[in-house]
C-alpha cells in the first residue's frame, strides 16, 4: 500500500523556481538598486525592482528651503550630469519669475555658458554610461578610456566653477561666475582631441563581436511601449522616435544651433533591431558627436560680452504653479513647482527620467536570461540618486 501511494508525488509546476536577490550592493546595478529575481534556472520569470535605498526626501527638504538653496540639492539628484539638473530647475523657476517685472531675464552670455557646460556635461555623462556599460558586460578596457576623457571635462568644470561633481554653477537668472581667461581655448583643445575618439570607441566597443552578441535583439522596447511608460531621452530615441526637447520645444538658445537628433535603426548587418539594448547604447554614442557639434558652433560664434546674471530683487515667484521640462542626458527632467509668492516653494516635485525608465524593467526582462538583466540595466542608463531623490 505504501509503495502504491509513493507513486503519486505532488509536483508543483514551478517547483524549480528560485528567488534571487540581486543587490542592493552589486557593481552592475549602478548605485543601490535591489532586484528580486524569480528564476527558473537561468530564465527570469519576473524581476521586481526595489528602490529607495538612496531616498533623502529631496521634495520635503525643498519645501523648507528658499529657491537658490535648492540648487545644490538638484546637483545630488543625478550627480553624473549635475549641470543639466541645475539647469532644469533654474529653467522652471525662471519661467515662473518671468511674470515678475523686476526680473530682467537671463543675459545672453549666461545662456551661451549654460549651453557650453550643459553639452560638456552631456558628453561626460554619456562617456560614463559607455564605460560602465562595457564593464558591466565584461569589457574592462573601454571604462579606462572613458574615464580618461571624462577627467578632461571634469578639469574644465573645475576651472570654471571649482567643483568636479556637484557644481551648483547654473543659478536662477544666470551662472555663478564668468569663465576664466583662456578657458575657451582649453575647451577647444578638448573638443579637437575628443572628436576623433568617438569613432575609436565605436571600433573598440560598439562593433565588438561579444558586445554585439550580448546586446543585439535583447529587451526590445518599442515606441508605443516607451511612450506608454513615459520613457524619454536616448531610450525613446533608441526606439526610433525622433523627439528631443532641444529641437522640438527649444529652450534657452538651442534654436540657434544646427544639430541632428540621432535615433535607432534596424541594422541587418549586425542584426540590431529598433529599440534593443544596442540601439539605446548607440544613440548615446551618436549624441556625443552632436554635442561636440554644438560646442564647436559656440566656439566659432563670438560669445557676447556682458553680465552673466539677471537683475532681480529676490526670488519670489508670483503665486501659481508650473510644470517645466528640459532635456537632461537621461531624458526629460521635469519640475512641478507650486508657489504661494513667498521665498520657499509650497511643493516641488522632480519628475525623474530614470524613474520611469526603471519602471519598465519588470516588463522588459520577462523571459530573458539572468545575464540579460545586466545588459538591460546598463542600456537604460539609470542613476539611483535621481530615482530615489
Amino acid at each position: 500500500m505504501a509503495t502504491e501511494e509513493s507513486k503519486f508525488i505532488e509536483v508543483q509546476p514551478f517547483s524549480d523556481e528560485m528567488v534571487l536577490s540581486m543587490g542592493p550592493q552589486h557593481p552592475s546595478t549602478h548605485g543601490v538598486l535591489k532586484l528580486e529575481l524569480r528564476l527558473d534556472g537561468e530564465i527570469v520569470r519576473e524581476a521586481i525592482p526595489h528602490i529607495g535605498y538612496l531616498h533623502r526626501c529631496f521634495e520635503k527638504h525643498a519645501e523648507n528651503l528658499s529657491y537658490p538653496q535648492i540648487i545644490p540639492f538638484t546637483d545630488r539628484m543625478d550627480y553624473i550630469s549635475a549641470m543639466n539638473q541645475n539647469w532644469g530647475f533654474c529653467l522652471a523657476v525662471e519661467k515662473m519669475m518671468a511674470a515678475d517685472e523686476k526680473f530682467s531675464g537671463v543675459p545672453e552670455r549666461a545662456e551661451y555658458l549654460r549651453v557650453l557646460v550643459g553639452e560638456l556635461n552631456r558628453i561626460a555623462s554619456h562617456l560614463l554610461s559607455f564605460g560602465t556599460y562595457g564593464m558591466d558586460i565584461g569589457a574592462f578596457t573601454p571604462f579606462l578610456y572613458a574615464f580618461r576623457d571624462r577627467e578632461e571635462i571634469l578639469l574644465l568644470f573645475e576651472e570654471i566653477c571649482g567643483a568636479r561633481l556637484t557644481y551648483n554653477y547654473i543659478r536662477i537668472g544666470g551662472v555663478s561666475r564668468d569663465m576664466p581667461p583662456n578657458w575657451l581655448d582649453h575647451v577647444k583643445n578638448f573638443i579637437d582631441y575628443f572628436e576623433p575618439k568617438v569613432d575609436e570607441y565605436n571600433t573598440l566597443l560598439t562593433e565588438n563581436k561579444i558586445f554585439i552578441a550580448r546586446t543585439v535583439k535583447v529587451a526590445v522596447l518599442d515606441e508605443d511601449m516607451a511612450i506608454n511608460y513615459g520613457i524619454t531621452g536616448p531610450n525613446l530615441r533608441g526606439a526610433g522616435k525622433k523627439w528631443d526637447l532641444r529641437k522640438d520645444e527649444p529652450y534657452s538658445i538651442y534654436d540657434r544651433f544646427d544639430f541632428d537628433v540621432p535615433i535607432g535603426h534596424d541594422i541587418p548587418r549586425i542584426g540590431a533591431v529598433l529599440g534593443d539594448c544596442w540601439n539605446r547604447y548607440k544613440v548615446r554614442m551618436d549624441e556625443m558627436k552632436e554635442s561636440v557639434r554644438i560646442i564647436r558652433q559656440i566656439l566659432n560664434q563670438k560669445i557676447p560680452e556682458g553680465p552673466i546674471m539677471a537683475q532681480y530683487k529676490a526670488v519670489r515667484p508670483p503665486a501659481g504653479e508650473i510644470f517645466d521640462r528640459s532635456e537632461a542626458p537621461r531624458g526629460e527632467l521635469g519640475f512641478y513647482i507650486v508657489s504661494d509668492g513667498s521665498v520657499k516653494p509650497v511643493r516641488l516635485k522632480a519628475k525623474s527620467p530614470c524613474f520611469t525608465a526603471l519602471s519598465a524593467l519588470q516588463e522588459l526582462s520577462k523571459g530573458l536570461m539572468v545575464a540579460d538583466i545586466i545588459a538591460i540595466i546598463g542600456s537604460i542608463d539609470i542613476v539611483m540618486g535621481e530615482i530615489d531623490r
Partner: protein
Amino acid sequence: MIIEEIQGLLCEKFGEKISPFEADAVHDSCILVDPASVDVICRYLYDDERLAFDMLMCLSGLDLSPEDENLSVVYHLFSDVHLHKVPIKAVVSKENPHLPTVENIWKTANWHEREAYDLFGIVFEGHSDLRRILLPDDWEGYPLRKNYKEPDIYRGMKVPY
C-alpha cells in the same frame, strides 16, 4: 489645442463632473475634475482622436497647507500626436483620500501612484501593486503631508538628528 478647447470638450462629454474653468493669468491653468471619475475622464482624454493624450509626463500629489482639509493629485498630460499639454487636477479629502487608478491607461502611473501613496497617503483604487516605493515598508505616516511629524525612534534609531 489650447486648454479652453480641451475644457470645452470635456464639459460637453462629462458635464457636471468638470468644474468651471478658472484661468491663471500668470502661470499654468488646471482643469479641475471630479475625483471619482478620474479614470473615465482620463480614458476619454487618451482615446479621443482630437485629444490623444498618449503620455503622462508627471503625476504628483499636492498638499497646500496644514489647515487645508484636502489633498490634490495633478496629472500632467502631453499628446505626442498633437503636441499639446494639459494639467488635470482632482481634489480629495484628507479624511478619505481615495480615487481610481489610471495605471491601465498609462503605465507611467504605476510607480508614480505608488509614490503618491507612499509620500501623501493617497489611495488609488484598483492599483495592481499599491505598496510603499521610496520609504521602508514599515514606515509610519506620510512625509509630504504638511502636518507630518517624523517618528522619534525608528527601529531603535533616533530619527531627528
